[in-house]
């Protein structure tokens, strides 16, 4: 039962993150939303890996790898946002596509 | 048995301090009084919880760990409270 609670929480976190990613213009908030989606997926994964008779260690190891990868990506994204703001004064992408 | 009683009493006390800290955080009128309420309460709260749980510990290592956690929290909270107060004094800024 507890596992279901955590898994559904994970699913809801993914939904929240997807909403924020699409709806929020500020890039720092989008980065946070990426992390919400990632951690929601991991929570779902962790709950799924704990269903068997013994807790499966592979999801846990993969999640740790995933957390580190997510941090790496966040750090690069944050760096890009700061560098962009330094040159343009905005922390949001221009709305119009460069495509004609 | 005695150990269990100690745990009940001390953790309850810790909980009370935490709740008091939260109430202070919510009720006090300005930033500085909230800050004061907070640092006192949550350090004592954590201390009593740690002490209460310590009566359930099996090994000395666990006791040492509990002591270390509390000491670290105390140190960090003291430092941080002082610096945050200075920062807040320098610029009482209201964001958004």
């Amino acid at each position: 039962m507890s596992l279901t609670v955590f898994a559904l929480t994970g699913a809801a976190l993914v939904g929240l993150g997807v909403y924020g990613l699409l709806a929020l213009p500020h890039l720092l908030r989008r980065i946070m939303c990426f992390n919400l989606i990632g951690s929601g997926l991991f929570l779902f994964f962790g709950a799924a890996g704990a269903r068997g008779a013994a807790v499966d260690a592979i999801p846990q190891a993969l999640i740790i790898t995933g957390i580190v990868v997510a941090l790496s990506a966040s750090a690069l994204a944050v760096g890009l946002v700061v560098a962009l703001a330094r040159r343009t004064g905005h922390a949001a992408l221009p709305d119009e596509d460069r495509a004609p | 048995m005695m150990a269990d009683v100690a745990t009940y009493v001390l953790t309850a006390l810790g909980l009370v301090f935490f709740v008091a800290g939260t109430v202070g955080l919510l009720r006090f009128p300005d930033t500085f009084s909230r800050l004061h309420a907070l640092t006192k309460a949550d350090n004592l709260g954590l201390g009593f919880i740690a002490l209460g749980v310590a009566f359930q510990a099996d090994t000395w290592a666990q006791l040492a760990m509990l002591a270390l956690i509390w000491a670290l929290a105390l140190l960090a909270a003291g430092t941080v409270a002082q610096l945050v107060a200075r920062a807040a004094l320098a610029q009482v800024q209201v964001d958004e």
Partner: protein
Amino acid sequence: MTVWLHIVALGLLASLGGALWRVWRGPSQADRMMAAQLVGTGGVGVLIVLAALQDWGLLVVALALALLAALAAVGFIKAQTPDGAGDPEETAPPSGWQNRRATGQADKRA
């Protein structure tokens, strides 16, 4: 004992929920950060209780959390200073703090 520890953990979580309201309300950044600090300490408390309840190994997690909460707070303090790299105790930035080779007190010491 198990039931009691559950109750303590639940009570702590409820108290933290209250602190979150202060994070929401602010109004100053310091208010939000201090409330978050209380949430951090409370989280350490919850983990200590869970350590007694589930596995003493969780004390390691509690210690890591305590350490990292301090880092977040220091990061906040830095961010509060005028240039984002200072120290609130330097009431005014040392003369020429813009220039890293200039005579900030900390520079002399190093």
